[in-house]
């Protein structure tokens, strides 16, 4: 049903937006379709209302253009009837667009985006953006953050297992950044002084880009991370290999295609996990 | 400027100038409101906040507050004089008010200088209040920032008020006002009373709670 619904919407939007329609990045998340659906519903109704406006304009321009023998019909439009008609139309717009998208949005927030997964199979990750890189931290074998055995992969690398909920807590070092993964339709700001949280779940393996969506300085445009979604066994192997190579981080840094010499990584970042909501 | 006959007048007899001043006071009040609420929000986010009197000198400032209230009184007297046609009284009371304002500013500057110069005792107090340094500066924690921002902003208002009174003293000395023409004094009074009123709020928020 949900697939069917988005297909119809997609066809309509493509038909109207024509050759310029560009698909958003492929959705590889469990809940991204919800956002796509809401956007596409909005596309459809808005296209409808805008078409009504355009048709009215064209019709009026043709029908009521000034020409000899044509006069305007005096009407101040302040009778009760007029008032009721316009207010009714206003409410029609409100109920056919706003109320529907609001309901969709509330439902999605309740069922997905604001319903944080709990329990033991949840992958927990701490992220600490700084000018202009992403630091990532895994709790390590003891399952606790800000302890000795935390696993800190090289800058800008994040791995997650497929089909498992991932909760991210994020707090930056210096200025505001925003953690944005287009393929997952998710975005959350990282504001100094507070810890924000967000969750998502991948449905496909592959490598995806993490972008910074909040202006954070002159290299904001190349503040980029790599998200690798892989099978659970590969993921665990990766974590284990990192734990063993703890002391050889420096090499990893060189391996990075974009050596960020200017980035000095603050020591001792990380915080005890705060279960939110 | 002469004004056209106005049609409906929901604001009674108030002159155009007075309406303008009321509007300005409303806007200025919103600025102060913004600062005070912002300060309160920052304070709410802090674990600890210095006790009243721990750093700031309450008794000195209480005296300063008293002084400012007195100038409100002399301002009323000034208006009262000119309403009776007493031009000399007007000049006299305006001068009192202005001097009071200058005195207030002087005490405030003295307090600032004392904080900025720093001292053993101040350092002791700052440490007790959980702050660092031997001087109390705008950069001394959020507490210093809030203190200087709000009292400084108010101080600028007193300064403008003093200049405003001085600017009105000139025509007052030349006898420009009379028992039928004192609108500009009334407007000046509005501004001065507003500055005093705000100070009572600032004093309460910054010094007493």
């Amino acid at each position, binding site marked *: 049903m949900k697939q069917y619904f988005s297909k119809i919407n997609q066809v309509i939007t493509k038909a109207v937006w024509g050759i310029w*329609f560009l698909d958003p*990045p492929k959705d590889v998340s469990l809940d991204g379709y919800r956002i796509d659906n*809401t956007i596409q519903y*909005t596309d459809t109704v808005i296209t409808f*209302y*805008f078409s009504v*406006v355009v048709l009215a304009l064209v019709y*009026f*321009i043709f029908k*009521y253009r000034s020409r000899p023998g044509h006069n*305007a*019909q005096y*009407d*101040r*439009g*302040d009778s009760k009837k*007029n008032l009721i008609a316009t207010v009714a*139309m*206003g409410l029609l*717009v409100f109920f056919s667009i*706003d109320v529907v998208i*609001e309901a969709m*949005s509330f439902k999605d927030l309740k069922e997905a985006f604001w319903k944080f997964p709990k329990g033991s199979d949840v992958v927990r990750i701490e992220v600490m953006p700084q000018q202009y890189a992403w630091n990532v931290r895994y709790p390590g074998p003891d399952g606790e953050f800000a302890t000795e055995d935390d696993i800190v992969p090289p800058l800008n690398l994040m791995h997650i297992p497929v089909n498992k909920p991932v909760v991210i807590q994020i707090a930056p070092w*210096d*200025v*505001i950044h925003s953690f944005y993964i287009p393929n997952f339709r*998710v975005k*959350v*700001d990282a*504001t100094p*002084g*507070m810890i924000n949280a967000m969750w998502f779940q991948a449905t496909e393996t592959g490598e995806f*880009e993490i972008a910074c*969506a909040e*202006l954070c300085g*002159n290299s*904001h445009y190349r503040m980029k991370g790599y998200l690798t979604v892989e099978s659970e066994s590969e993921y665990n192997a990766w974590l284990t290999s990192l734990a063993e190579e703890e002391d050889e981080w420096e090499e990893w840094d060189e391996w990075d295609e974009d050596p960020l010499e200017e980035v000095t990584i603050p020591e001792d970042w990380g915080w005890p996990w705060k279960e939110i909501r | *400027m*002469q*004004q*056209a*006959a*106005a*049609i409906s007048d929901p604001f009674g007899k108030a002159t*155009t*100038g007075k*309406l*303008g001043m009321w*509007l300005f006071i409303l806007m200025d009040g*919103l600025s102060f409101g*913004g*600062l005070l609420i912002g300060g309160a929000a*920052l304070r709410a986010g802090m*674990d600890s906040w210095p006790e009243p009197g721990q750093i700031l000198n309450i008794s000195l400032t209480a005296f300063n507050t008293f002084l400012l209230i007195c100038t409100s009184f002399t301002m009323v007297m000034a208006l009262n004089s000119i309403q009776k046609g007493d031009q000399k009284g007007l000049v006299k009371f305006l001068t009192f008010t202005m001097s009071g304002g200058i005195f207030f500013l002087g005490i405030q500057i003295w307090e600032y200088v004392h904080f900025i110069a720093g001292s053993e005792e101040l350092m002791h107090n700052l440490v007790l209040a959980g702050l660092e340094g031997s001087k109390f500066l*705008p*950069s001394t924690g*959020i507490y210093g*920032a809030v203190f*200087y*921002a709000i009292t400084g902003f108010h101080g600028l208002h007193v300064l403008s008020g003093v200049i405003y009174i001085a600017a009105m003293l000139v025509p007052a000395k030349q006898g420009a006002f009379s028992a039928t023409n004192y609108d500009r004094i009334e407007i000046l009074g509005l501004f001065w009373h507003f500055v005093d009123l705000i100070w009572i709020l600032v004093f309460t928020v910054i010094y007493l709670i």
Partner: protein
Amino acid sequence: MSTNNESFLTKYIFSTDHKVIGKQFIWLGIFFLFFGGYLSLLMRWQLAYPEQAVPWWLSWGIFFKDAGGIIDPDTYNQLFTMHGTIMIFWAVTPILIGGFGNFVIPLQIGAPDMAFPRLNMISFWTWFLSSVVLLASYLLPQGPAAAGWTSYPPLSSPMGGIPGEGQTLWTLALVLMGTGTIMGAINYIITVVRLRAPGMTYFRMPLTVWGLWLTSIMNAVFVPVIAAGLILLLLDRVLGTEFFVAGGLASGPGGDPLLYQHVFWIFGHPEVYILILPVWGIVSDLLAVFARKPAFGYKVTAICMSTICVLSSIVWGHHMYTTGMSPLLGKAFMFLTLLISIPSSIFFLNWLATLWKGNLHFEPPMIYTMGVVWVFAIGGLTGLYNATVTSDIYLHDTMFVVGHFHFTLAATLVLGLFAAIHYWFPKMFGREINRTMANIHFWVTFVSMNFVFFNMMVLGYAGHHRRLYNPMEFDFLKPLLGLNEWITWFAIINGVIQLLFIFNFVWSMFKGKVAVRNPWGASTLEWTLDAPLPHGNFAQTPTVYSRPHEYSHPSLTDTDWVPQSEPIPGTA
């Protein structure tokens, strides 16, 4: 009322005549409109041809010399920061509020001048000073501000990593500009309250005056708030306080970057309505004039605009959905934001209904006005995507938002102010503006503008985030280069055609056909006066008998209009 004993200085520079001050504001605004537009073209060049030298015809061979003509990342950030700031505060605001507010309000309500003419003059010169401060930041070795027009700290604080003092001058210029705005607001509000001619009740004021008046009230309430915020930011920059600094850069606990965002948007959201209300008013009036019909549901439109003002003060959170606000707040802000579409749709329908059964004259002001109807429909409707929390999680800070606000802010306001300029030109300069040139200018501007701004939304939907120096850094944005190129070329067409507007404006000022007193057959009071308007306006204070648009009244025979200052025959 004699003007002959005024020197050049008091007549044209330090004039207290609202009409002269209005023109001064318009000149200032047009200068900045071009300046800000030029910055946007440089930005567009970088987006379409990343890190390629700016061609000589765009850089005049003098800019970016040291980098071989290539725009560097710091410069790019300065470009959009100054583009946004200038367009909003130094181009559109001076023209619409300073310019037309001054010129039109007293004339349309039958007043001799503003309530405080001297304050009016000081307001302009404060504004002028603020623009000097703003431009002075270009002389700094490290250039002007670069933290976006929103200038979120800690980035905009000294520790944020932006070199130089451009950000300080930016803040200072904004504080000065705010002071000028506040003075103007006092003036407009009191003028409308006090100086209306006899018979000019609130519900007989033209909707233009309604728009400008509501705008001024909003200015009076919200500019002081942002002034407080900017003062704190300024203290952070010059005195080393840490109001808005937290995290690793802060020397102690307590600063709160989020506080700035709240303060900024408490002002910033109403600000967008501050900008657009005059245009809504102008459009409502002009549609009536050129449809030769009373504005449909005049009272309802005025009430809707007022309702939007009230609502606009409690929706600021919709700019902050991704800051981690609590679910309850998020839902509340979304609901309130969506409520705004009810009054918006109602007055929008009133616009359409004004055209219905009208007698449409497609004079230049009218085609610009109908252009506004088109672009505002797109701009307003696309606001709904952003208002939805879930859609906005994806669309926030992408080019989609940029597209949305260029349709509302840029397209609606620019077309609206062109409509206003073409409409009041005969009254300002006593001459008619050339119609052929105006028509060409309209069509090229309209088409290219729609192309540019619509495709920004397409980019955003495809994931293109905003304030990106070089999108080619990201693989998922590489396919978008082609569309970016198209946009840039249409933006350049849009820029070039503006030169035609300037030519037309200046040419018509000196060489245009001498205008008659009331070329549009409009019934509002300013058209009862002859073109070189004397200081003091009305020789005799007019008395008002009717609403502002009584066109095609059944009891009229020879003409289809009657000025507001005369009773409609057979009804008095």
